[in-house]
Structure formats: structure tokens, C-alpha cells
């Protein structure tokens, strides 16, 4: 399914926040149609990577590059990256009181696609996606994430992804805070949106979601660097052993 073209490449990326180096040389190569999972202990830098990929102003890339379709995007504003086809599902989505999900997403889609879309046309597009993801239509009229439960916010992130149709989606702990049924709903939702031209980088602590969003590669990040990569079995091994044991084995193997 994966084509040969490596359209997303992170090369020796170093990132600082307030002069602390958090990412210490991350490498990752993603082809079209591939799913990559990134796992790693709390505070290892996964969200830092996600934010940096989307262009958060507090995260300063001090070395390395991030190539999207061959172009270094590190100097680009977040909205330009969105227009290029990059999407980030936030670990902690923000609320925008007073702005309905429908209005927000219509504005967003117009901005990303850079074309007009009639209210009626958009409404249909949105409702189709809501039905696909089994999200109650009532959410279209509610203020974006305002008063939503943790799980509802996560499902809205997936809805946004479905509406905006990105080429690359970075999903930061889309499964955390979800009950077991919701993990299945979200997982199935993601795989129903996925298509051969789309790539996903999914950050998670647990293999459960990966049963629905089956990764081609699993990477383990520790202390701001990817220390180990493998196939799906690495996620299961990790679950069985925990980071401590797994990483000791890795260290021994590499020394």
C-alpha cells in the first residue's frame, strides 16, 4: 500500500523550550499511506514533537529539518502548514466559547482549502462526517469543545480531521481519557478516514488503539530521541515488559 515517495521526513530535529533542549535529534521518515506509532514515557518529548511539527511559537527548532513534500516547513506559520495538508489532533484540545462547531469548521475548511464553500454544501459535508463517525448531530450547533467531556473533545478532533481531509495527521494521545467503547469508536473512525494517500503519526501509551489503527512502524521515544523502532510487535512487547525492562534490553543489545 505504501508508495515509494518519502513525503514526510524529520531529520536530526533539535527543539528547545525556554532554552531547555527537549528534543535531541529526532529522525523519522514517513511515506504516503504509512501509519507510524510513537510511544514513550511521560515527559519524553512526544507532545513537543507534535507541537513543533505544527509550528507552535514556543517551541524553537535549533537544528535539523522537517521536510514535507521535499520542502522544509520549519519556518512556516501553523496556518500555512494546515494549508499544506498537515493536521494535529491535540492531546488537550482547547475550547472556543461562543463559536459553534459548525461555524468553526466551515471557516477552517475554507481557510485550509482556500476556496469558498456554501453554507448548505458545508452542512452536508459536516453531517456526512458526523454520521460516519457516529457523532450526534447535536454537536454541530454546540460551541466548540465548550463544556465537552474529555472523550467528546477527542472525538471532535477526529471529526475535524475527517472534515479537513489532511495528507498527514499527527494524533497526540487521541485515545487517552477514552472508555473502552470510545476507543473502539475513535479507532474505527480513524481507520474509516484513512486512505492510501494519507499518512498518520499516532502518539499513544497503549497498544489498544493500535489494533484499530494498525501501525506499519512503532517507535519508542525516550529523553527526546527515538531509541528503538520496530513493527507492531514492539508495542505488544512494550506492554508486556514496560519501558524499564525493554530499554535495558535495548541498551545491552546496542552496547
Amino acid at each position, binding site marked *: 500500500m505504501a508508495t515509494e515517495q518519502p513525503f514526510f521526513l524529520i531529520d536530526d530535529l533539535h527543539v528547545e523550550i525556554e532554552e531547555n533542549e527537549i528534543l535531541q535529534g529526532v529522525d523519522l521518515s514517513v511515506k504516503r499511506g504509512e501509519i507510524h506509532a510513537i510511544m514513550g514515557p511521560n515527559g519524553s518529548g512526544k507532545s513537543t514533537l507534535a*507541537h513543533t511539527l505544527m*509550528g507552535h511559537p*514556543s517551541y524553537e527548532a535549533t537544528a535539523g529539518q522537517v521536510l514535507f513534500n521535499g520542502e522544509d516547513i520549519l519556518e512556516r506559520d501553523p*496556518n500555512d502548514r*494546515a494549508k499544506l495538508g498537515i493536521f494535529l489532533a491535540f492531546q488537550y484540545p482547547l475550547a472556543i*466559547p*461562543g*463559536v459553534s462547531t459548525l461555524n468553526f469548521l466551515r471557516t477552517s475548511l475554507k481557510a485550509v482549502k482556500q476556496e469558498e464553500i456554501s453554507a448548505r454544501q458545508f452542512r452536508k459535508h459536516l453531517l456526512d462526517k458526523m454520521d460516519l463517525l457516529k457523532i450526534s448531530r447535536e454537536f454541530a450547533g454546540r*460551541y466548540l469543545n465548550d463544556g465537552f467531556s474529555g472523550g467528546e473533545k477527542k472525538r471532535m478532533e477526529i471529526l475535524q480531521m475527517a472534515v*479537513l481531509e489532511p495528507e498527514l495527521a499527527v494524533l497526540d494521545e487521541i485515545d487517552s481519557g477514552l472508555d473502552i467503547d470510545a476507543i473502539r469508536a475513535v479507532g474505527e473512525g480513524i481507520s474509516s478516514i484513512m486512505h492510501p494517500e494519507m499518512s498518520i503519526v499516532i502518539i499513544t501509551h497503549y497498544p489498544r488503539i493500535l489494533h484499530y489503527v494498525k501501525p506499519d512502524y512503532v517507535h519508542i521515544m525516550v529523553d527526546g530521541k527515538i531509541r528503538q523502532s520496530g513493527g507492531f510487535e514492539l508495542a505488544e512487547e512494550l506492554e508486556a515488559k514496560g519501558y524499564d525492562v525493554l530499554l535495558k534490553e535495548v541498551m545491552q543489545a546496542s552496547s
Partner: protein
Amino acid sequence: MAVTEKDIQESKKVYKEKYGFADPEQAIYKAPKGLDPERVIEISQMKNEPEWMLNFRLKSLEIFNKKPVPKWGADLDKIPFEDLSYFVRTTEKQGTTWEDVPEYIKDTFDKLGIPEAERKFLAGVSAQYESEVVYHSIQKDLEAKGVIFLSTEEGLEQHPELFRQYFGTVIPSADNKFAAMNGAFWSGGSFVYVPPGVQVTIPLQAYFRINAEQMGQFERTLIIVDEGAYVHYVEGCTAPVYSTDSFHSGVIEIIVQKNARCRYTTIQNWSTNVYNLVTQRSAVYEGGVMEWVDANLGSNITMKYPSVYLMEPGAKGDILSIAYAGDGQVLDAGGKAIHVAPNTSSKIISKSISQHGGRTSFRGLLKIYKGAERSKSAMRCDALILDQESRSDTYPTIEIEEEQVNLGHEAVVSRIGEDQLFYLMSRGLSESEAAGMIVSGFIEPIVKELPMEYAVEMNRLIQLQMDKAVG
């Protein structure tokens, strides 16, 4: 958010093109500058007023001269009282069709979209240019039901008894310095009477335009909503951008009779060289409802606190306000609720936005007199500050003489956070679009109270003020 001087100039330019254009002055009479009693007599004579009104004016001038400039709010010491013209007449007669209005004035109102709005969604229109109403109209069926919608001068002339019964009763000239000033120089404004039981379901609108440089506009409005009746009155205003200051000081008195309801909506969009000091107050009787919806976007300094006096049991008053202060602007707004009778209720809700060094202040007064037991009141103000240069303050005052009351008070000041902007930008919005969206969401609870056409206009005006590159 990095806002450059260029952005600010750009947004001012947009105002100038859309609303701030000026016509060459073509007054047929412009009073000499200054605050002499002679000016007052002259205005009264030009309007052929009865003697009691002349006396009211002269008395008001005395009060104005005695009262000091208030020191508790914005800095008013720079108001150039001696340099202003207090009366400018542009036409001998008011039109009841736009053809009757001098061509250049009609063009101005065309540009501002008034005749179009009138055709589409208004029950009546009053258009004031400089000191006087130049055009007014009301739908025939309302007129047939006895609804009166006239300029204030015509109200005095055509309905002398009704007029005199209420004029100056809700806001006497002794109330404050600027109410006194209005009492002396008042000109224009609306006189509205809605007979018992009559529902005016679509809005009446008054539009106020200052065109002359260094001018004082003193509209005076009197609205009487008789038992069980309803009316929604909307006012809008704009002015050209000049380097000198102009002055607008209105007085709006509203009487809401038993079980009647009145909504008064303001969309204030003066250019930033206008001082805007307005006193608006309503007396509400048994079971009546007064709603002020007050949006202040323009002006150099605004001081304005719509008030409700809840006079009889069951009276209710809501005051919703939005203020936006940009570069060099001081918007001092809020509301006052005075509970005189038992079982009365009030709500004061304010939303303010400050940006580009602007300053907003919320001033709320809640007073519950002895005897107003079982009254309820809620006061809430939310301030949103968009950058480091801007500022917001809240000054709530609560005076309670009664124990059995139910009160709530809340004030929240917040800044637009980097993370919120980042979230929206990650969805394709530019930084200014993102800020615009956060602001329009912030004011939504109040904007949704406006008729649809005004809600759209309101959002557009705010976005226009915030940054040029939106939409």
C-alpha cells in the same frame, strides 16, 4: 500578537472610507462657538418653542455651569467646550420621503445603508444629520394604531401635553453635568409613544450622523411605552474622522408602563475623535421589562451606563453591553440597576475587549432600597485583553439596604492565550482571523440578542476594528 503601527493605521483607514468620509459643510445655520445663554435663547427661538422649554434650557445651562467636570472616570479635562458649535441646522424642513432630503445628505445616508435597511427590515426610521432630524418615516399601519414616532421637536409641537408630562422626569438636568448640558442645548432625537397593548414587532431605528468639524450633538430622546405595549428601538451613529474633537451628549428617557416591554439597542461607532457622554435611563413600572443592549465600538472617550429604575413590584431590567477599545480609546461603560420596589429583578452583563493600547472600564451600580425585598440581581463582567499594551478595569458598586435579596456578582478578566491562537491557527486560520474568531465567540452571548441584521453588522464592525486582514 505583534500589531504594528501600520496595522492600526490600516484599520483606521477602513473606518474612514466606510463611515468616516466627510461632506463639505453646507449648513444653513451654524451657531457661533461657545456656551452663552444667548446661544440657548437662539436655539429655542429657531425651534419656536413654548416658554417653559426655554426656561428649562436656561435653568439647565445654569446647572451645567455650576457642576464640575466629573473626576471619577475618564479624563475629560481636554474637552474643548469653548471651541464647539452647539447647533448646526442643515435644512428648513424634515423629509418624510428621501426625495425631500437635501441631495448630499441623502447620499450620505445611502452610503451608510439606511434607506436600504429601512426597506428591508425596519418599521420606521429617523435620520439625524448634525443637530436635527432631516428624515423620518413610520409604517402606515403603526401610525393607524396610534404609534407616534417623531423628532423630539415635533413631539413637543404636536403632542404638547403628553410630552410635558414625561419630559425631564426620568433624567432631570440636575442629574449630572452632561445631562444639564443636553438640557440646555438639546436638539433632535426621537419622541416615541406606543399606545396600550400595541406591539411594534419590527424595530424602529434612529441614525445619528455628525458631519461638521468641532461640533456638539445633543440628541434628546423620550420613549413612552404604555401598558402592555412593546417596542424595539435601535440607534446607530458614525462621524467623519477629523483631527479636532467633536462632542456627543445624548439624553435618553424611557418610561415603561405596567406590563409593557421596551428594548433599546445601541450600536455606537463614532470616529475616534468624538467624545461620547450619554445618559440613558428607564423607569419601569409594575411587571414591565426594560432591556438595554448597548454596543460601544467607536469614540475617543465614551462614558455611558444605561440604567433601570425598577419602581413597582415585578419590574425587570436587563442591561447587556459590549465595549471595544482600540488605539487611544477609553471606553468606560456598564450599567446601573436601582431596585425601589419588592420582587424586582435586574441583570447587568458586560463584555469588553481592549486591544492596541485601548482601555476599557466596567462600572456597575446595584442599589437595593429598603422595602425592595425579595429582589434579585446578577452582575457579571467579562473582560478580554488582546495584547500587553491594553488594559481593563472593573468598578462594581453594590449598595443593599434590604436583607431578603438574591445577588450574584462575578468579574472575569482574561487574555487571549497563545495556545488558543495556536489551536485555531493549526486549523488554517491566520493569527488575526484566530483572534477575530475568539472575540466573536466572546461577544456571542450578547450579539445573539440582536436582530440578525445587526448581529452580522456587529461582528463585521468588530472584525474591522481589530484588524484589516480578516475575512
